[in-house]
């Protein structure tokens, strides 16, 4: 018999925690599920409980902010069931979710489901990007600032992302040598952020601290440069960067090479709506953020009955907008469960409308300023790997399109997106390649997702089926 909850929240980042807080305050019976051992999501990730930091303030504004929200979550959320180290591997009929915790499988039922799955990074793709030692910016950030580890001596930090400058600064602060900060977006464009940053003082101060660290340590900044190559046998040893002209050719004399241990690169943040897709929620393409988001109306209700979405898997907006939207989604669910009157929800919505609008405009500017630009991938060498898992190249994908593949479903014939990660990494790249051929996004669509939405050992399913059969006998 499956445990039943009034609300199940998938994801314990700022959106999931905020929604849980609001729902618990209204006395709802809530379960929160997350893969990670502790609440916080990616943005408010804690360091391991077994570790002790001598000075937590050195971990930055984000860490302190996250700590506050997590404390509120533990205080108010005492009433809710926290299923950590647990992942949802599928949604099934009759409002059931299938969970896996270690080597156990369980089903739970919900009246209302909130999707707060979060975001991932858009990869930066260039010849050799699959070599060990090439990481995403967020991946290196987690290693340096939450796992207290520098995985090498010399680093190249590259891409077009709000994480670029913070990661470079954190590597420097930890004692790493930064051979170069390679920003695809010319530095001059960053100036467009300042009018909006005036209203985001803590972000502004943090940005100034980061810039100061970079200047103080004399780390070279390459404005308008792209990573064009990297080399090494078993791991990356060398990387080349250059300015590209409009045709993607290396501008004369701009090529520079570095001997490095680690190259961290990515091109921005994209939604990670997996369960939402599997459950059939309608999605729409965000042409600014270049990713698919769950369509919701009014407010946080998806096209599927009893399913809501908030946070970065709904709309890319960062920690503050995610928290605000999470609170509102929690209240909307409380209203739909009959736990609060409609006017209370409406009042809370209008009370915060101004702040939300400012945040939204800031995020929109950030996305525009830090956009890597369209069709970076189409300029690469045809032998560049697109799908890491199945080692499918750009040339393979292009020839698939020539043979008539126009949709994400059809392009799987090249085996792109068919590996262990189930297309999580390459989807945005493949979309960009097909878009570059002039095929409209509505036709291209996205990778369909079926259960299990994350790989699980088949033995666990066998054991669960046997146990289920015994119980029903």
């Amino acid at each position, binding site marked *: 018999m499956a445990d039943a909850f009034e609300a199940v929240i998938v994801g314990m980042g700022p959106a999931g925690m905020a929604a849980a807080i609001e729902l618990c305050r209204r006395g709802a019976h809530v379960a929160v599920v997350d893969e990670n051992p502790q609440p916080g999501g*990616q943005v408010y990730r804690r360091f391991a409980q077994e*570790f002790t930091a001598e000075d937590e303030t050195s971990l930055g504004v984000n860490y302190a902010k996250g700590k506050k929200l997590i404390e509120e979550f533990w205080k108010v959320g005492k009433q809710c069931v926290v299923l950590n180290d647990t992942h949802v591997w599928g949604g099934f009929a009759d409002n059931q979710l299938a969970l896996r915790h270690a080597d156990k499988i369980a089903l739970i039922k919900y009246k209302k489901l909130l999707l707060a799955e979060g975001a991932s990074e858009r990869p930066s793709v260039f010849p050799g990007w699959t070599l*060990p030692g*090439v*990481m995403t910016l967020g*991946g290196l950030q987690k290693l340096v600032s939450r796992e*207290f580890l520098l995985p090498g001596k010399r680093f190249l930090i590259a891409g077009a992302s709000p994480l670029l400058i913070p990661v470079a600064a954190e590597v420097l602060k930890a004692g790493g040598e930064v051979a170069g900060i390679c920003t695809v977006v010319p530095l001059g464009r960053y100036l467009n952020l300042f009018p909006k940053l005036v209203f985001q003082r803590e972000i502004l101060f943090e940005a100034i601290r980061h810039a100061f660290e970079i200047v103080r340590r004399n780390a070279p900044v390459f404005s308008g440069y792209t990573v064009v190559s990297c080399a090494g046998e078993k791991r990356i040893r060398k990387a080349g960067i250059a300015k590209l002209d409009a045709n993607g050719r290396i501008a004369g004399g701009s090529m520079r090479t570095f001997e490095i241990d680690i190259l961290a690169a990515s091109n921005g943040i994209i939604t990670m709506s997996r369960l939402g897709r599997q459950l059939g929620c309608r999605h729409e393409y965000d042409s600014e953020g270049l990713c698919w988001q769950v369509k919701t109306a009014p407010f946080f209700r998806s096209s599927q009955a009893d399913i809501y979405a908030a946070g970065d898997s709904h709309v890319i907006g960062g920690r503050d907008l995610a928290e605000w939207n999470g609170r509102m989604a929690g209240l909307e669910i409380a209203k739909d469960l009959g736990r609060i009157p409609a006017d209370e929800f409406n009042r809370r919505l209008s009370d915060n409308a101004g702040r939300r609008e400012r945040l939204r405009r800031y995020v929109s500017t950030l996305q525009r300023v830090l956009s890597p630009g369209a069709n970076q991938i189409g300029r690469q060498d045809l032998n560049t790997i697109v799908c890491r898992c199945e080692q499918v190249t750009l040339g393979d994908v292009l020839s698939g399109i020539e043979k008539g593949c126009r949709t994400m479903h059809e392009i799987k014939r090249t085996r792109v997106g068919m590996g262990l990660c189930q297309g999580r990494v390459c989807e945005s790249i493949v979309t960009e390649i097909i878009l570059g051929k002039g095929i409209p996004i509505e036709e291209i669509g996205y990778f369909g997702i079926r259960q299990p939405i994350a*790989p699980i050992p088949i033995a666990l399913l066998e054991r669960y089926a046997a146990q289920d059969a015994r119980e029903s006998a």
Partner: protein
Amino acid sequence: MDQGVIRGRALTIHVDGIPVRAYQGQTIAAALLSEGIFTSRTINQQHLGVYCNMGICHSCAMTVDGIANVRICKTLVSDGCQVETQRFSKVEANG
């Protein structure tokens, strides 16, 4: 980097049979990277390692205590755990 943090209790894990020092609370990925072990698996002799470090890319998947395809960036070390490199060959697509 040892400044600023007191790590968990020291323990030993085994990577392809070779003992590697690790600390309680650490992921297997962090333990391997701190020892300079970068390869998690190979596909047609191409090496893959920790890429996203947050459970998305499955690039770091290794065999842990006999279970294949375990993401080492999401799996914490435990005393005596056996970690093995995975080696695959690609099956050619028919398309």
